């Protein structure tokens, strides 16, 4: 395909994806109180964002939920992905895989409703001391994210095959050493991307958190949603720009780390 045709196909799509984001970044530096009319450069919305107590509180809550639920999802998802890829045949493998795919195919309103009913039933029928809030949202997020982690780990292990593990076992390594020295390093990239995906999913979720949360726990998306219903303010765009900057920095860091690793590998060779 010629370069012109290629650009002709790609440019409209990327313009659609990035034009709204570019406008957000530009207008986050707008001095005007009106969201869409430009009146001059200013960082006042970043200062307003920093001083917005409830929003900062919600952000902190969301970050803690995301970090904890992503860690739980990574542990569970690694076990599930390993069981599916290298666990050999076990009883109920088909049902295991089918149930694992529920969070991937069930709409989030249903998933949120189901988990809320579980927590309510646990409270009402068995008398479990379940306060709806941080804990219930974290459990819910860990549950839906772990299916995604499992998919990534399973794909990675299926790609890698079992040759290395078998060779290590043949050479006398006990199972714990095989796992620590062979399997874990093989899975590592999937664990990192799985944790990041789980973190993002949690940070982005409004629906499941609204169902499973309580009055005391307002996450960042819940706060943003109720604010967006009343009207968008330039603070939103300041927040979006900050998030974008963090993501861009993280991507650049990952790219650099890979460059360094590649350079080192070729130096060794």
């Amino acid at each position, binding site marked *: 395909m010629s370069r012109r045709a290629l650009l002709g196909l790609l440019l409209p799509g990327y313009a*659609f994806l990035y034009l709204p984001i570019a406008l957000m970044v530009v207008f986050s530096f707008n001095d005007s109180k009106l969201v869409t009319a430009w009146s001059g450069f200013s960082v006042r919305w970043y200062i307003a964002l920093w001083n917005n107590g409830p929003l900062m509180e919600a952000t902190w809550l969301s970050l803690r939920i995301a970090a904890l639920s992503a860690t739980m999802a990574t542990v569970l998802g690694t076990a599930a992905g390993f069981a599916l890829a290298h666990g050999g045949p076990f009883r109920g493998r088909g049902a295991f895989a089918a149930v694992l795919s529920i969070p991937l195919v069930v709409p989030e309103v249903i998933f949120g409703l189901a988990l809320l009913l579980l927590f309510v039933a646990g409270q009402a029928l068995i008398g479990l001391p379940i306060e709806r809030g941080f804990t219930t949202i974290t459990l819910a997020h860990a549950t839906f994210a772990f299916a995604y982690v499992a998919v990534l780990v399973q794909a990675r292990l299926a790609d890698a095959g079992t040759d290395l593990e078998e060779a290590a076992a043949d050479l006398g390594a006990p199972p714990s050493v095989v796992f620590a020295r062979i399997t874990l390093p093989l899975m590592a990239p999937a664990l990192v991307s799985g944790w990041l995906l789980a973190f993002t999913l949690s940070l982005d979720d409004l629906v499941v958190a609204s169902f499973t949360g309580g009055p005391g726990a307002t996450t960042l998306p819940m706060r943003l949603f109720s604010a967006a219903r009343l009207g968008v303010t330039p603070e939103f765009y300041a927040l979006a720009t900050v998030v974008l900057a963090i993501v861009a920095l993280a991507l650049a860091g990952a790219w650099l780390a890979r460059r360094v690793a590649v350079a080192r590998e070729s130096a060794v060779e």
Partner: protein
Amino acid sequence: MRRLIVTLPTSWMAVFLVLPLAIVLAVAFAEATASVPPFALGFNLGNFATLVADGFYLGTFARSFVVAGVSSALCLVIGYPMALAITRAPQAWRGAFLTLVILPFWTGFLLRLTAWIGLLREDGWINTVLGLFGLGPAEMMYTQGAMYVGIAYCYLPFMILPLYARLSARDVALEEAAADLGAGPWRVFWRITWPLSLPGVVAGSLLVFVPAMGEFVIPELLGGPAAETLGRVLWGEFFANRDWPMASALAVAMLLVLMLPVGIWQWKQGGER
């Protein structure tokens, strides 16, 4: 160790996936009451009778099907040329192009929607530009069109990634052979490329269709009152009406309707192997 690796996720799934769905099924047959929690278990078919008899719910199902179908088609029309072009880009650029497709996904779903509110509002960016040419203002917020743009914007990566995976695995030699034998570019596309990419088209469409059926946030923020989708109705039954049994019955009906196409697809996939 091996036993623990299977037992841990299995018990987690039993408690947090299977049990909750079983409770939803039980509550769907319950009776709504003014107690805490607001239902009394039983075997009450009234909720399902209402779902079938009340035109409002049937209409919502039909509308949500249309919304999900149109959304999938939109994502396909926008995403297919992009996925195809990325497979034909120089090898070194493909990773960057794919990252650029996924990058907006990390900026936060609600924040991206507020960008569209800024674009579509009556005093928004699009109307400002239209005004420069003496046109408008066009009424765009709270319309079906606004909702579709929002859904296409948020779900596009879910269409492009499976399409790309399928298209990048195809054998380009087939297309070259067809072209050598005298087929024009369109004929090559429709007779070779498109049929080879069909599994990717189906996978991507399902990844858009299923969540779009239950979508709540986008129709709520952009669609206006007429965009009454299943996700919004279920949300309303639960939060506004506090009718948990009705919300559960809706969830059960929705699952039955959704599992049908997904089940058929997986069964066909299994048959091909």
